[in-house]
């Protein structure tokens, strides 16, 4: 029997955008708004604005690396630029980034579920169930997952907008955003520069070969970036309006709390359940995408043709590591540390790699010219 015709499947722009937006923005359903409120006070939303500027910088670095070796992913191109030793070390950095992301998110979600929705279920069971479902989603592949994100996207967006509008309508403090610069402009810029909240965009670099071409990839990147900015900024602003500082600093999961306080007459109340729906779906999809990213990076480092065989061992490792933090506050601390230093991997590493690649290219060209002469 002759072989079949085509062996590749490609990611569509809409689907990839949906997956990237879900992966990056799902953290607003956890403790990120509280963490930003703690740093910026009434100007926490301005930290988001500064953080969003990481987007073009990440794009610059990742695109530079990929363009030096067209058709390659961020991982394989990095290894070609930095060599097998330093390249692998850099790639392990990417792996650890997504591993840390998966681990913290799975534990945060499990803790939140236990504290709010399933109080009698043991925590390890919740971690295992979340991890298991994420691995299943990852097993289905980036194509299937991205299509699921595209399908769920409108519902999640609708639920999210409803939540913000109703939350704002229930209670809003008019002067919540003042003083405009909060604890000071310097602090905003400093934390905005350090805090890594959109580094998840790196997944587009890892999946770069799955796109039709560089133009499609760039389009996907910037559309995702714009939507991420819109979602994060709007949620942060509304959180600040509904829970003015310092209240926003004292609520562990502000958006969940917002869903609980909504009460617009007898017909519109207990929106918490609607929130729970989008909260859980977003979390699962985020975990699935992060698991794909993790396994893909490792598979590319190990030069394996498929990442699927790595999912089960990685899942066991994530489950074990996610059990290490003793309580809710410790996992938030882990998340804070991860967000404070994540920029080293997401922003600096691709740009440094690109710089090294350019230098090596120039050196090689000069050496070639000298050899010819």
């Amino acid at each position, binding site marked *: *029997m*002759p*072989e*079949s*015709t*085509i*062996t*590749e*499947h*490609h990611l*569509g*722009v*809409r*689907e990839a955008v949906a997956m990237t937006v879900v992966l990056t923005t799902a953290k607003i359903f956890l403790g990120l708004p509280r963490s930003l409120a703690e740093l910026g006070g009434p100007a926490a939303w301005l930290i988001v604005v500064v953080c969003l500027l990481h987007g073009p910088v990440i794009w610059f670095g990742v695109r530079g690396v990929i363009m030096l070796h067209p058709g390659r992913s961020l991982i394989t191109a990095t290894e070609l630029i930095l060599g097998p030793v330093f390249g692998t070390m850099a790639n392990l950095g990417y792996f650890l980034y997504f591993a840390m992301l998966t681990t913290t998110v799975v534990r945060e979600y499990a803790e939140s*579920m236990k504290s709010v*929705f*399933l109080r009698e*279920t043991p925590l390890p069971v919740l971690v295992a*169930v979340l991890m298991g*479902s994420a691995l*299943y*989603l990852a097993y*289905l*592949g980036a*194509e*299937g*997952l991205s*299509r*699921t994100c*595209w*399908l*769920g996207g409108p519902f999640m967006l609708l639920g999210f907008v409803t939540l913000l509008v109703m939350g704002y309508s229930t209670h809003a403090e008019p002067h919540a955003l003042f003083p405009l610069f909060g604890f000071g402009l310097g602090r905003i810029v400093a934390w905005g520069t350090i805090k890594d909240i959109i580094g998840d965009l790196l997944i587009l670099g890892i999946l770069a070969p799955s796109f*039709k071409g560089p133009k*499609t990839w760039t389009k996907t990147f910037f559309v995702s970036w714009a939507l991420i900015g819109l979602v994060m900024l709007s949620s942060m602003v509304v959180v600040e309006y509904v829970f003015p500082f310092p209240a926003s600093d004292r609520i562990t999961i502000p958006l969940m709390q917002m869903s609980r306080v909504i009460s617009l007459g007898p017909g519109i109340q*207990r929106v*918490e*359940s609607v929130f*729970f*729906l989008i909260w*859980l*779906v977003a979390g*699962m*999809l985020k975990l*699935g995408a992060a698991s794909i990213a993790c396994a893909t990076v490792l598979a590319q480092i190990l030069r*394996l*043709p*498929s990442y699927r*065989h790595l999912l*089960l061992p990685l899942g066991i490792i994530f489950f074990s590591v996610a059990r290490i933090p003793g309580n809710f506050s410790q996992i938030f601390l882990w998340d804070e540390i991860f967000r404070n230093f994540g920029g080293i991997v997401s922003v600096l590493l691709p740009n440094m790699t690109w710089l090294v690649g350019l230098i090596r290219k120039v050196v090689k060209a000069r050496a070639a010219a000298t050899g010819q002469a």
Partner: protein
Amino acid sequence: MINLTQIKRFFIADLTTTRDPFSLGRWDEPIDDAVSPKATPVQKLPPAFEGELRDVPLSCSMDTNITHFKQQFKLPTSQGLIIHRVQVPLDPPVEAAVIYIAGMADTTHVSNYVLKPLLGEGGLTILPSTPKEMLHGLFPEGQSYVRTEFYEVVLDLMEGGVAVLIDGEAGVTTMRAEGWRKRSIGPAKTEVTVRGPSEAFVEDIRTNLSQVRRRLRTEEFMIELGHLGRLSRTDIALLYIKNITNDRLVNEARRRLAGVDVDYINDAGSLAQYIEDHPNAIYPTVLVTERPDRVATHLAQGFVAVLIENDAHALIMPTTITALLHSAEDAYLHWPAGTFMRLTRVLSYYVAMLLPGAYLALANYRQEMIPTPLLLAIAQTRETVPFSTVIEVLFMECSFELIHEATLRVPTVVGPTIGIVGTLILGQAAVQAGIISPILVIITAATALASFAIPTYELQMSVRMWRFTYIAAAAVMGMAGVIMLHTMHVANLAAMNSFGAPYLAPTTPFQRKGDNLVRAPAFQLDKRPELVRAKHVSQQDEITRPWTGEPAAPPPSPKGGKPKS
């Protein structure tokens, strides 16, 4: 005995395996690239005979040939082959033999149109002067062939043909004379519509082909015939429109059909399992229909279809979950009505699948979502029920499945009785006995009604099975379990393909003007579905209502209006 090879794959990476690679092309690429015939060499559908019989030629000696036929058909141990030896009154007289299989060929036909002309009786035919002319001109009417290979004659006999052997000639004339009883064309039973045609396929493939051909009167309509099954030698037909259907799709269909290597196959459902992408999936990935109009519509849009002898159903490939929720009737009504019906079906799909699970999750885990008066009413009705909600739900659902299965299997006259008895047991008696609460009767009834509103039988079955999975998820983890399971369920569907087309198309990948859950007006459906990557995307002019003077005019306003110049 534990199969170590099966277990090994969970521990050691098998890097040689890949997933099914067939795809109809990148979703974003120009269609011209996707249909280019850079694909595999064209395969042919499997022939009826393979092996040694193909190499046996016919002899000039009639006796040798008859001996060979007797050996092949195991005469006299096995009965059925009828051999009439006759002397044809030529000058000089010629020995001939008429062979057919009892029950397969029509004896009246054999007598009137074969034996009598051969014997020069009845003045039906003027006999040719030589055996050669006789061979080629004996049956000017009807479908007759001159065969030179032994296996061709055997095949014709198996299909109800009659063969005429003439002594001294190395060829055999065969003629179609099927004599078995056939069911006449009747109305559709499982895809009933109020408007539009109501006829359905029958078990005879030629009748079915004629039903489709009547609707597609173009020379581009292709019917490729083949056979499947070493024992059954069942006729199959691959149907497509030559200048519309993607060559790669046709090749893939041929490739998969050619790969079916079995002794016996006799129905479309079994065939579907051999050729579909996900034979272990709960969802069907091939559309099975009994309606010729639906087959013709799909063929005109660039799909391929397969008909099989002895089955009154056709297979249409590729298919999507959206197509499984469509009914032929959607197109026969005005688009608002068609859309309304489709949305009702989508709602019924979700109700049939999720309602019992959602009720269980709400009643057990998320009582605050239920309005307080209703919650109190439910609590009051459950006061006397001795079982937990999970047991209640499972009892009702299992009872419903029992009744459903029993109603299908018993004779038609008894069916309604079982329905009434079941309803009484499930409804009145169970509530009065305090086994279940009244609210659950309403839930089960709504679920049952919703499941019957799903237009495709295979999808109904899938939904019924998924319903129990959702009940289990709700019992264990409440609403969280339902949501998580549903997310994985949708992701699973999103990752599925049917003959290279995404299963959730045209929702994802998205086609802007696709025939999706919302049905566009017929005059706006300018393009064929993207998922089949047809050779010609356009299926009608943009101006389909020329008197309006506007391309793809919007739906007519309720007030009517003057035609625009």
